[in-house]
């Protein structure tokens, strides 16, 4: 047919085909014209054309149509036809398909369908194909405008962070300032709640967490890694000197050398050892955005090379996941409660709030900046009574005031049982609710009254455990029962952090559920919350959080399949390795070659019972570690273990992709410098993480979605994570599977197009302005109040997809996720799984801490109980160290002799007994390690308890790494490696016995 003559029988078909060929021919020619036009218009594009000399061919499979493009010394020429031996070739099965895929608007679903079904293919070096496709994409994107001209050469961009969205003012390519976003008149109106004769409306702007004001200082930190580095005594072809990790220095190398080493190590370990040899891990949190996030581009890359993921424990939930979930389900939320409508209900109905191990003013919920603060001020305006139960007089207590009750750490479950005792014996609970909505109460009641073990759980009994006077517990119990009371159990958002992270964390969280059930959870004014979640924003407007997987393509290990896979077509990515390592046992996996764990599985209650082992059958032990960032020394437990696990030949290769030279990054063989999200493109929403914290944006007063503009060029030679993975992919032949031929900005647009945003604004408008405020719904469309449906015996009406349909015993939407559908005082899931486990009985009981005042030998030597909550002025390690301005915050670090020391807080009596004065250096230590801190003497702790935040970014041992005191402040060197219970993967960092002495430098 190539001569164009048609045979009669297929003449109509051939005519169509000829028409299609013609159309394609025009399109291919217009691409040539467009390329030339773009070069004339955009100097950057002209410069780009100088980057490569090659020939690109586009053609249909049967050679009926084609055109090639010759890039030579910045000049472009093009000819119709098919040329022999082009450098790259894009091939389409048919002209019609080629025409469709090459014509705007870009149809990614059509493109990936063509790729998956071999209608479309690319030959030639990945690097050139990627470059050609990016060049084609820039013909569109270069004309896009973004940012607001503020005059005087200043452009105002937008961006996002785990501490809130922000305006970023830039002049001459440098960040001038970062501010909250002030809304303008064109932004959607705010909501108003009418309660008790007053009107409550939030301020017309976003808020930021303290450390988010420090981003400029972190972007321009002297600790930024500006070029790839290699440890000086690491030779991939000779001596690796693994024991020198953390000691030896680094030398600058080129990107080519760094990426070649990493790519060849990936190939080597796969070739020599097989699946599973590549270990990969990141911190729990990354910088912000749906594309550059660790659950997005990194997951896609790691799936493309095959890896052993480090599985996260439910690190902030713990007791709610391993304990509370068995009483009420909520596996989708890792055992934490529903979060809807509670702001309005609380303002209208509630008379008292009990904050129990709950300090939202410190932890910002999670990602919630200071959005909840104004709402908590309204509680004061309304005169709602407040009680704060916490060993530390925390910042929420100090700010709001109210009664402070300070139990000894990890004994709160004893106090909770005593409250139940008062309610039972004085007839102060909701018997009708307990009868109708719960099961197993009588059995638990017998335990509380002492009929089972002979020990009535009286207020006097609890006093021996908690040190809280019995009279105070009786008074609290009576007041609680007399008033419509909200229970705020957990650090920030409902049900995370605090006492859930100690040796008795399971039993504490379980007891919290039992207590609120006794008072009628879900009735007006009786619920769980602290005004952090449940604001009346629009929960129906869809925009994803980072846990929904972005561009990961991973349907198994992210939330992609729930919404995004259908909305944002992309190639699936699947990890072929079946091996995983539990994060809290990572050192044992490396050093001992064996460990076991239990999963963090949100699908169903029973997910957490499925024990796994490392190594997995038929898989290789770990041979290389692809580490993303450097936080574990500050954030895991007994962290000298993690230090030691680096300094061994059992781990022959470590690459760390990091923004800053800190923590674990200093223990790598090769360091790849990543840039911050101010130096690359991304897109995200304020406080929207999705996943386990479904509808987490109800923490915000307004839903604010931001385009995360590339505000400045990457510093030094640093690159975006996406770009680093792309360049590695090119060396491994998977570049197109990684990028699908797109740039980061293209991916942002893909995501935009897949969300409800595309229905209410245009891409160009959104990109230019940088943010969109989702209108609050009219009052009648606000989400109903949590658990009201349950209290009233109606089908579930709160807008969440969990539990999965099969987990409802009585039909979809009827009852809770438990087997009975009721709130179970005796847990059917535990009766099925491990009815005789003394560490986790089928109903909640008092189990003393395995590291506390009952562990007498240890307590004698280490008589101080250390609690180490999530930090206030940094978000995990973000914000801390790095020469950030946060270090100057008086309650964060203290400058002594030119060094910013981490703070340990100690009662005046304990300090006096040790001769310690304020702002003096002390050694906090136990058998696991020693940390040098600055002492802050305070009355905000009872004697016997000390307080220091976890999550130092700085690890700075005064001697041998892994076995000498750390003056950086990694307080988690002291916390126990033991999991809350054996059948868990749960950190118990708030159960930690230590001693404190004045620091004598000679001791080092």
């Amino acid at each position, binding site marked *: 047919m190539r001569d164009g003559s048609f045979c009669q029988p297929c003449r109509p078909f051939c005519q169509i085909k000829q028409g299609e060929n013609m159309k394609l021919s025009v399109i291919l020619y217009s691409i040539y014209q467009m390329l030339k036009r773009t070069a004339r218009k955009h100097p950057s594009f002209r410069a780009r054309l100088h980057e490569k000399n090659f020939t690109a061919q586009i053609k249909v499979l049967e050679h009926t149509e084609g055109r090639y493009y010759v890039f030579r010394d910045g000049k472009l020429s093009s000819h119709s036809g098919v040329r022999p031996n082009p450098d790259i070739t894009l091939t389409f099965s048919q002209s019609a398909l080629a025409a469709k895929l090459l014509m705007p608007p870009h149809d990614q679903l059509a493109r990936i369908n063509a790729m998956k079904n071999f209608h479309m293919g690319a030959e030639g070096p990945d690097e050139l194909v990627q470059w050609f496709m990016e060049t084609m994409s820039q013909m569109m994107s270069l004309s896009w405008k973004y940012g607001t001209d503020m005059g005087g050469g200043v452009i105002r961009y937008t961006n996002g962070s785990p501490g809130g969205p922000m305006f970023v003012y830039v002049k001459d390519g440098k960040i*001038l*300032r*970062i*501010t*909250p976003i*002030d809304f303008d008149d064109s932004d959607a109106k705010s909501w108003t709640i009418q309660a008790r004769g007053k009107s409550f409306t939030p*301020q017309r702007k976003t*808020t*930021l967490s*303290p*450390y988010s*004001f*420090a981003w*400029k*200082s972190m972007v*321009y930190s002297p600790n930024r890694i500006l070029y790839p580095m290699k440890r000086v005594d690491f030779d991939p072809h000779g001596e690796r000197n693994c024991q020198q990790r953390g000691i030896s220095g680094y030398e600058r190398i080129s990107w080519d050398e760094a990426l070649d080493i990493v790519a060849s190590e990936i190939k080597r370990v796969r070739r020599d050892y097989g699946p599973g040899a590549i270990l990969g891990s990141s911190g729990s949190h990354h910088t912000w955005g749906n594309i550059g996030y660790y659950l997005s581009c990194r997951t896609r890359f790691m799936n493309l090379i095959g890896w052993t993921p480090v599985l996260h424990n439910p690190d902030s939930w713990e007791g709610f996941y391993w304990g509370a979930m068995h009483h009420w389900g909520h596996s989708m939320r890792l055992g934490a409660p529903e979060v809807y409508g509670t702001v309005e209900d609380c303002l209208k109905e509630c008379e008292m709030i009990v904050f129990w191990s709950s300090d939202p*003013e410190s932890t910002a919920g999670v990602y919630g*900046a*200071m*959005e909840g*603060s*104004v709402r908590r*001020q309204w509680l004061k305006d309304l005169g709602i009574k407040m009680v704060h139960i916490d060993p530390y*007089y925390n*910042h929420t207590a*100090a*700010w709001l*005031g109210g*009664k*402070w*009750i*300070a139990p000894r750490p990890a004994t709160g479950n004893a106090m909770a049982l005593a409250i139940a005792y008062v309610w039972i014996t004085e007839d102060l609970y909701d018997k009708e609710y307990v009868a109708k909505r719960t099961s197993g109460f009588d059995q638990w009641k017998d335990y509380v009254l002492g009929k089972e073990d002979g020990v009535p759980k009286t207020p*006097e009994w609890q006093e021996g455990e908690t040190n809280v*006077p*019995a*009279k*105070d517990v*009786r*008074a*609290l119990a*009576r*007041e609680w029962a007399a008033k419509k009371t909200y229970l705020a159990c957990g650090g920030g958002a409902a049900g995370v952090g605090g006492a859930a992270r100690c040796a008795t964390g399971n039993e504490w969280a379980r007891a919290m559920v039992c207590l609120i059930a006794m008072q009628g959870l879900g009735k007006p004014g009786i619920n769980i919350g602290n005004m952090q979640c449940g604001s009346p924003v629009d929960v129906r407007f869809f925009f994803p959080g980072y846990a929904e997987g972005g561009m990961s393509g991973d349907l198994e290990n992210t939330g992609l399949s729930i919404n995004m896979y259908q909305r944002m077509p992309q190639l699936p990515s699947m990890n072929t390795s079946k091996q995983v390592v539990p994060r809290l046992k990572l050192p044992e996996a490396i050093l001992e070659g064996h460990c076991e764990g239990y999963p963090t599985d949100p699908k169903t209650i029973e997910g957490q019972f499925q024990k796994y082992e490392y190594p997995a059958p038929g898989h290789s032990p770990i041979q290389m570690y692809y580490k993303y960032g450097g936080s574990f020394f500050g954030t895991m437990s007994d962290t000298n273990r993690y230090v030691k696990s680096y300094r061994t030949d059992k781990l022959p290769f470590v690459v760390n992709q990091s923004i800053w030279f800190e923590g674990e990054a200093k223990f790598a063989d090769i360091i790849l410098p990543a840039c911050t999200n101010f130096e690359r493109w991304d897109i995200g929403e304020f406080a929207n993480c999705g996943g386990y914290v479904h509808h987490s944006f109800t923490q915000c007063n307004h839903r604010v979605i931001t385009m995360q503009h590339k505000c400045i060029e990457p510093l030094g030679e640093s690159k975006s994570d996406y770009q680093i993975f792309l360049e590695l992919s090119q060396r491994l032949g998977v570049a197109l599977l990684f990028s699908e031929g797109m740039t980061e900005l293209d991916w942002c647009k893909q995501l935009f197009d897949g969300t409800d945003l595309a229905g209410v604004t245009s891409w160009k408008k959104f990109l230019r302005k940088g943010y969109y405020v989702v209108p609050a719904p009219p009052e009648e469309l606000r989400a109903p109040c949590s658990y009201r449906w349950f209290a009233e015996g109606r089908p579930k009406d709160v807008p969440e997809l969990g539990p999965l349909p099969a987990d409802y015993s009585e039909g979809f939407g009827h009852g809770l996720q438990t087997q009975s559908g009721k709130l179970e005082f005796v847990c059917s899931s535990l009766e099925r799984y491990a009815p005789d486990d003394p560490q986790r009985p089928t109903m909640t009981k008092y189990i003393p801490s395995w590291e506390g005042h009952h562990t007498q030998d240890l307590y004698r030597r280490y008589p101080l109980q250390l609690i180490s909550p999530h930090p206030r*002025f940094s978000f995990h390690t973000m914000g801390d160290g790095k*020469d950030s*301005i*946060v*270090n*100057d*915050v*008086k*309650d964060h670090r203290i*400058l002594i002799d030119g060094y910013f020391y981490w703070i340990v807080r100690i*009662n*005046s009596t304990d300090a006096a007994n040790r001769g310690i004065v304020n702002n003096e250096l002390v050694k906090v230590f136990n058998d696991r390690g020693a940390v040098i801190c600055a002492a802050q003497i*305070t*009355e*905000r*702790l*009872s*004697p016997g308890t000390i307080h220091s935040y976890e999550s130092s970014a700085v690890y700075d041992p005064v001697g041998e790494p892994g076995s000498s005191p750390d003056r950086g402040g990694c307080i988690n060197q002291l916390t126990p490696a033991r999991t809350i219970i054996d059948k868990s993967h749960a950190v118990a960092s708030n159960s930690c016995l230590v001693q404190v002495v004045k620091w004598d430098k000679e001791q080092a």
Partner: protein
Amino acid sequence: MKKWHLIIDVEKCEDCNNCFLACKDEHVDNDWPGYSSPQPRHGHRWINIQRKERGKYPMVDVAYLPTPCMHCEQAPCVAKTGGDAVYQRQDGIVLIDPVKAKGRKDLLGACPYGAIYWNKDLDIPQKCTFCAHLLDEGWKEPRCVGACATGAIRALLITDEEMRTTAAAEGLEVLHPEYGTAPRVYYKNLHRFNKCFLGGSVAVMINGREECAEGAKVRLNNGPLVTETTTDCFGDFRFDNLERGGATYLLEITHRDYQSKGLAIDLEQSVTLGTITLVQIAA
């Protein structure tokens, strides 16, 4: 003539440090010619948040006092340079001219509030500028105010007369009026920082068990001044806004069913009395 004033509510400040960090964000590494040279990355506290803990476990409270330059009408730093190197603008903002004040380390001692800091590298004294460079560009407030999420800091452009009216209406005070510098920074609820409280808990024995005594009358006498309160459900009472400095207070606790109790307390600082148990009136 309208002048810039700040009103800081001590009770609304929770030490989040957003004002302090926003100030650093604005001034570290940024040169604002005609207004200020860059602030050093570390060490300066142009808005210095001071902490005050009162009482003892288990009854304590904590207050924070953000202290910027007071932009005094009678500023000693202005006087010291004859209004040249340090000067007051028409809108009340006091600025240090970074060029003219070079080498003037002596200015640090001029400020009784300790609001001036020394920049060693640039050899200049520096302090809060009220973000005058932004206000002159049309911004409505300095960075510290924009950063505050709790409304603890307000900026007002009003006449001194209007400010005096506001201060009287809202019960505002200036810090250390005895310095006589006529500050333009006013504080609300300053007693949380510079006055004392006296608090405690009242208990009674009922059926051999200690119980919190709700509803006990507690009366505090100090000369002619008498204040009264009632214990809450935890038996707690607290008197605040008391003068420190050795004044003797007489405390009297009365309860319908129990014997009254009196205590004399010398108040050097805030006092947490702990639990006071009343004895039942004999039948």
